[in-house]
């Protein structure tokens, strides 16, 4: 597979269960740099869990994840979680930016401080430099006039854009989005999608779990359909939406189109 060699995200045979109930049942996925991949599927299909396994907010049971050259592998169940493993998890997280459905901004910090915090604490870069980066990123997401606002003083769309800026501040190689617009009022969805589209144009590798089918169709490079903890079908949007191969995909998409 040539794709595998050039990929920035590689996942081999990923398994995860909660209390004996399997949620991910052998996921293989390889994502090339600059690609925007959209994960779709019915709720409970495991797509969010998959995303959370990529940066180890959930530790997968078995399989291998490689992001930007950092490899995490668990071979047997149960395999012990060593200190070495945890150190690698942190390295891997530095390659990955995460955007949550409910934004999860730090409510005690202003938008600017939210964006500056991780570079200051984790990378230890000088305050002036961190602030310059933060201001630049907030401007990029259209919040240059709101840098000193607290999250409670921002609208949902503004909060999510600030959250994207916060993730970008760590200069990740991949951005993960877990239903980034599901908690937003319909009128505010577009401003967030616009930011993601802009990042796509700039060449950021992005993996998005979403129900925004129009966004998926117009912007994604690849659509991945999840069901029952497995990847059912994977295709470019045009093919996926016009002629899905699998019956299950067809049934799912019918509800949206």
């Amino acid at each position: 597979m040539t794709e595998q060699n050039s990929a920035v995200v590689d996942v081999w045979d990923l398994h995860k269960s909660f209390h004996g109930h399997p949620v991910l049942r052998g996921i293989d996925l390889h994502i090339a740099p600059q690609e925007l991949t959209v994960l779709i599927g019915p709720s409970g299909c495991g797509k969010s869990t998959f995303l959370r396994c990529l940066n180890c907010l959930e530790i997968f049971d078995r399989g291998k994840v490689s992001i930007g050259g950092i490899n995490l592998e668990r071979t047997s169940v149960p395999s012990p979680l060593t200190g070495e493993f945890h150190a690698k998890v942190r390295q891997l997280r530095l390659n990955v930016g995460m955007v949550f459905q409910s934004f999860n901004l730090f409510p005690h910090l202003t938008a600017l401080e939210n964006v500056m915090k991780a570079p200051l604490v984790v990378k230890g870069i000088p305050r002036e430099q961190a602030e310059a980066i933060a201001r630049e990123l907030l401007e990029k997401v259209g919040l240059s006039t709101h840098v000193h606002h607290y999250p409670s003083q921002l609208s949902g769309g503004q909060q999510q854009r600030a959250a994207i800026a916060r993730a970008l501040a760590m200069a990740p190689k991949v951005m993960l989005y877990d239903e980034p617009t599901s908690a937003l009022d319909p009128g505010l969805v577009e401003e967030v999608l616009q930011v993601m589209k802009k990042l796509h144009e700039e060449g950021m590798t992005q993996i998005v779990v979403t129900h925004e089918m129009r966004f998926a169709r117009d912007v994604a490079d690849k659509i991945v359909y999840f069901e029952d903890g497995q990847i059912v079908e994977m295709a470019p949007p045009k093919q996926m939406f016009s002629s899905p191969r699998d019956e299950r995909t067809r049934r799912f998409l019918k509800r949206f189109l």
Partner: protein
Amino acid sequence: MITYLISLIVLFSITASTWAQTSSPKILRWGADSEGGAPYAFQDPADPGRIIGFEVDLVNALAEELHVRPEFVQNQWDGLIPGLQRGNYDMVVNGLEITEDRKAEINFSEPYYLTYEQLTVRKDTYDINSLADCKGKVVGTLKFSLAHRILEAQGGIEVRSYEGQINAYEDLANGRLDAVLMDYPIALYYGQRHPKLKFVGGPISQMTYGIGVRKEDRQLLDEINLALEKLAQNGRLREILERWALWTVPMAEFLHDKKPSTALPTEYDAYMKAVGMRRTWKDRFLQYAGYIPLLAKGALTTIELSILSMLMAVVLGLLIALMRLYTPPPFSQFALAYVEVTRGTPLLIQLFFIFYGLPNIGIKLAPFTAALLGLGLNYAAYEAENYRAGILSIPRSQMEAALALGMTRLQALRHIIVPQAMRLVIPPVTNDFIALLKDSSLVSVITMVELTKVYGQLASTYYDYFGIGLLAAAMYFLIGLPFVRLSRFAENYFSFDKRVPNMARGSKKPRVLSLSGLAHSFHP
């Protein structure tokens, strides 16, 4: 923190100077409880900063004979023997009766005073003239006293035991008791002077007061006995007792001294004059104003102790809470056990244990250190629970967001979780501080003289639990007040919702951090 505590312990540890080790010029430290009241060792009603009493005079005379300088050490009466054993002072002179069980613990000198129990009743009581008449009556006395044992042994008497003599005689005067049985000196100074009360019957039983010293201080005991002998021979002892109106028949028999009185009861008269004065409002005002410096001194100790132990509790509590929440089992279980045990046992017992118990394993702490440790360690358990509640109320998603940004758990706690928990924790912590301020009164049991102790001393001296009580209560209230204000200020400071740097969206009402689930409300 632990090393800090250890260094504290080392710093404040006092090495008990046993008598033999003290280098000259010798200081002879003697323990007594000035709250015990007249005529033993008590605060001079005319000058409350001074300790007077027949035992003070006796110790001074003894010290002169021994060529030492006496130093008074305040100690709760119940704890006089443990205090002696742990080396807070070298002898006890405070109406300590020579009894067999006490002799098992410490050595006693030859008796310096012999007296008896005296029955006191209301002036309009005619049916009680002896101990036998008390059958079926309610009789009050001091707890742990010989009189208490006598009343119990008599049988058929409803015995009420009191902490202080004043309350017992007050209850007799206002009819809650039918009689009071107490040591003659106490009865003389507190019972007889009461306008509604009178003595009835003759001497009951006999008791001997001796000077208590540690078992190992044999040399000191011999020196004291020699000096006492000398004071008895040259008439100094009799003179002291006579000036306090305490010369008794048993005493005269004991010393084979049948001569008529020579000295006038000058000290007794002075005391009766000082406490019995009919006062004008101006006098009263001046009198109360005179208590303030003493109360303020006690209040200062209370403040100092409360602030330091709260600081300790707040720091230690955070560590314990984090340990319980974020460390693997042996540590988290230790933290849990610490909280459960500390919270589940009385502070009073913890204080006793630290002050009187730890010397058994060689850890001898100064009273202030012991009080600080006792209060600090106890309240740390409560603060830990406050922090834990605060931290748990921060949504898990905050920790996840911080971890996803590459922070370690510790960094996430330090920068994200704890600052948010802080605001939620301020009101209960303030609450605990106010509680601690008042709980600090318990440390008087380990010889600390703080606000409540000063109140007790003054009240027992002046027969005035009301006015002085109001003064002391007002002081506690005033001490707490600034901290309540401070906490309100801190709460505002930490409530990030109300900090509005830029009123662009000023119409928005402040959002309240929800205590469960999602922290973020969505703006329509």
